[in-house]
């Protein structure tokens, strides 16, 4: 902790001078963040508010209904519908299962790669650092499209390799495998990003700590386990929270893969469901409801995770 200066007691000399602090000077910091504040208001807060308002409305029609519907206030009715919607539950269950498997694997791989990058035994570190990071630099849609050609049984070199090796052909787009094919794409894309964050945290560990550990007789894996891992814990918690938030919102990969697979239903994951409700089914109000629920679930999970790991995260 930095040593704080003791507050100055009002001396006799100070009391004689009038206070010269200008009130207008206090506005300057707020002026500096005004541009960001305006944009944040316009593109974050207002749309969120609009979505919340939309989620409380619904449209009503009667008879043949072939005319403009009327918009009525529906209170929490839409939320009730979502709670009774089996497609929504299936999507949420699916995304949670996906997250529980994919996030630990991805962060585990990222951590091991970061440790390797930080060690002294690896050569060509700059090349590997770039190579692992490049998938993140590729736009998500482009990456998913690349992988459609690696998954499509007619074009995939992987499938034909498996076929030539004599094993029964493997269907990446089958009912039971499509979820893990998506997990594969996401892991490929985000591992490098998480690795960079963890690597930066590892680089920030002062050398004296290693010296002290060496003097105490700690070597190799022990250093990784007892020194590096605990000191990198805050960064790990950060990447974990970011991954949880990202995973709950998965959209790009299912959307792109739905073009080549029969097994991505319109309610495959909550974000896909909200998108299809808004833009294919014209249920703007219900889509807003789904989006609000998804935001709340994400908030609960990420905030809850931070609470759980408060000891380690330094937050």
């Amino acid at each position, binding site marked *: 902790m930095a040593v704080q200066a003791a507050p100055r007691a009002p001396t006799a000399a100070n009391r004689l001078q009038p206070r010269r602090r200008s009130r207008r*000077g206090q506005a300057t910091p707020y002026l500096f963040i005004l541009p960001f504040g305006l944009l944040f208001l316009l593109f974050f807060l207002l749309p969120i508010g609009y979505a919340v308002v939309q989620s409380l409305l619904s449209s009503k029609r009667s008879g*043949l209904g072939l005319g403009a519907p009327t918009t009525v206030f529906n209170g929490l009715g839409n939320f009730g519908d979502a709670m009774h919607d089996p497609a929504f539950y299936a999507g949420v269950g699916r995304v949670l299962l996906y997250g529980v498997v994919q996030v630990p694997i991805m962060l585990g791989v990222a951590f091991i790669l970061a440790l390797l990058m930080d060690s002294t035994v690896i050569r060509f570190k700059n090349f590997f650092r770039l190579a692992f990071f490049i998938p993140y630099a590729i736009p998500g849609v482009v990456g998913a499209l690349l992988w459609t050609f690696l998954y499509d049984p007619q074009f995939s070199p992987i499938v034909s390799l498996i076929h030539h090796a004599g094993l029964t052909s493997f269907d990446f787009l089958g009912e039971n495998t499509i979820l893990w094919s998506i997990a594969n794409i996401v892991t490929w894309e985000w591992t490098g990003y998480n690795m960079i964050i963890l690597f930066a945290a590892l680089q920030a560990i002062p050398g004296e700590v290693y010296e002290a550990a060496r003097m105490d007789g700690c070597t190799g894996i022990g250093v990784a386990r007892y020194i590096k891992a605990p000191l990198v814990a805050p960064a790990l918690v950060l990447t974990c929270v970011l991954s949880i938030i990202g995973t709950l919102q998965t959209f790009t990969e299912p959307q792109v893969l739905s073009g*080549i697979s029969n097994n991505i239903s319109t309610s495959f994951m909550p974000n896909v469901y909200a998108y299809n409700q808004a833009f294919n089914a014209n249920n703007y109000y219900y889509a807003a409801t789904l989006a609000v629920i998804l935001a709340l679930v994400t908030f609960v999970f990420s905030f809850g995770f931070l609470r759980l790991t408060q000891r380690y995260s330094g937050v």
Partner: protein
Amino acid sequence: MNNRSQSRWTRGLLTALVVAGVTAAGVAPRHAQAQQPRAVVNLSFWSWVPNLNTSVDLFNRTHPGIHVTWNKVVAGNLGTYAKMFAALKANNAPDLGQVEYQFLPTFEATGGLVDMAPYGASAYKNQFVPWTWSQSTLGNQVFAIPQDSGPMAMYYRADLFAKYHIAVPTTWAQYAAAAVKLHQADPNLAITDFPPRDAGWFIGLLWQRGARLFRVNGNAWKVAINDSNATAVAQYWQTMLSKKLVKTDPDFTQGWFKDLQTGGAATWLSAVWGANTIIDNATGTAGKWRVAPMPQWTAGASVYGNWGGSTTVVFKSTKHPKEATAFAEFLNSNTGSVVKMIDPLKGAALYPALKAGLDQPAVVQPVTFYGGQRINTVFNAASAKVDVNFQWGPTMDQVFADMSDDFSNAVNGKITLVQALNQLQQSTVAHMQKSGFTVQQ
């Protein structure tokens, strides 16, 4: 910076911001108030039909007071419908747009289409193929001008049928038998692909059988997605699926195009516009494909289904409904305009809904790719026998989505196609009732 200059700087910045804001707000109204001479009416038109500029230019030349701008957009299902719905909600939709028949009731249910009858559109009724007009109107209201249609027939690889000595099927029973023979002769071949997520295709088959999924009964909708005709068609295809006689890949994908090229699929039950799909994506098979009428449910019958086809509509937010109606009528009924759209090379190879258009030489000419066959004579005959009473429902987006999901489950063996239809019936009725439509079952 000391306090005084700091506050002066702050004041100056705030003043500049306020002045800028007031000026910007003040400029806009002044433009609107400026006097304009008698202006040309500008209309915008969203359509994904290629090479429409020829017809649009023809209209602009012959109608000096109106100028139509054509915006080429992607196909409706690939995002343009979503754009149109969003624009209607924001009240800044284009004046005119292209909408397929199956989505007309959905658009009507948003209240976003202009009734063109007050502007004289009813006079065009007898110029169009009857079922296209009946799907574009509701009672006396004319919500769309028909542009093209998609009567269905069977594209088949004549060379494969000859190679394995299989007669070209004329009934569905013969089709199933041909499927068995083909699969036995070469396990890598299948008679066709069954795409579970292409509801429009399957509904075309239901249409042929005479299934009436939706009916307007006074002030209520009668929904019968699983009526006896539909169930019979589902049962037929379930048998084909169970015996693994068909592929189940999604259609219009790279893998599916490859099947067209390599003969993985020996037939394609498709609409008239499918002719170009094959030409564009299976160039190596030139001369090997032919077109035959759709197999029939009873020998000797001739009933056909339709898949696709679109219309031109006028959106509610337009400020010039009269001029927009005039353009819609001209585009789809003026001989010069229709001939340009029909042109297979310089136009859109459109199959017109205009009765006079069906006799045009460009429509019935021999097509080299299909071995010189005049393929459109098959489609002309089919077009005349498409059931005129088929009606689309007001929530086809939900029906298509649910049908895709349910049929995908059927293809994975979880349920049968007949059960899928029953589930679809239940979910459609529930959704329509929830949305406020009056439904009878």
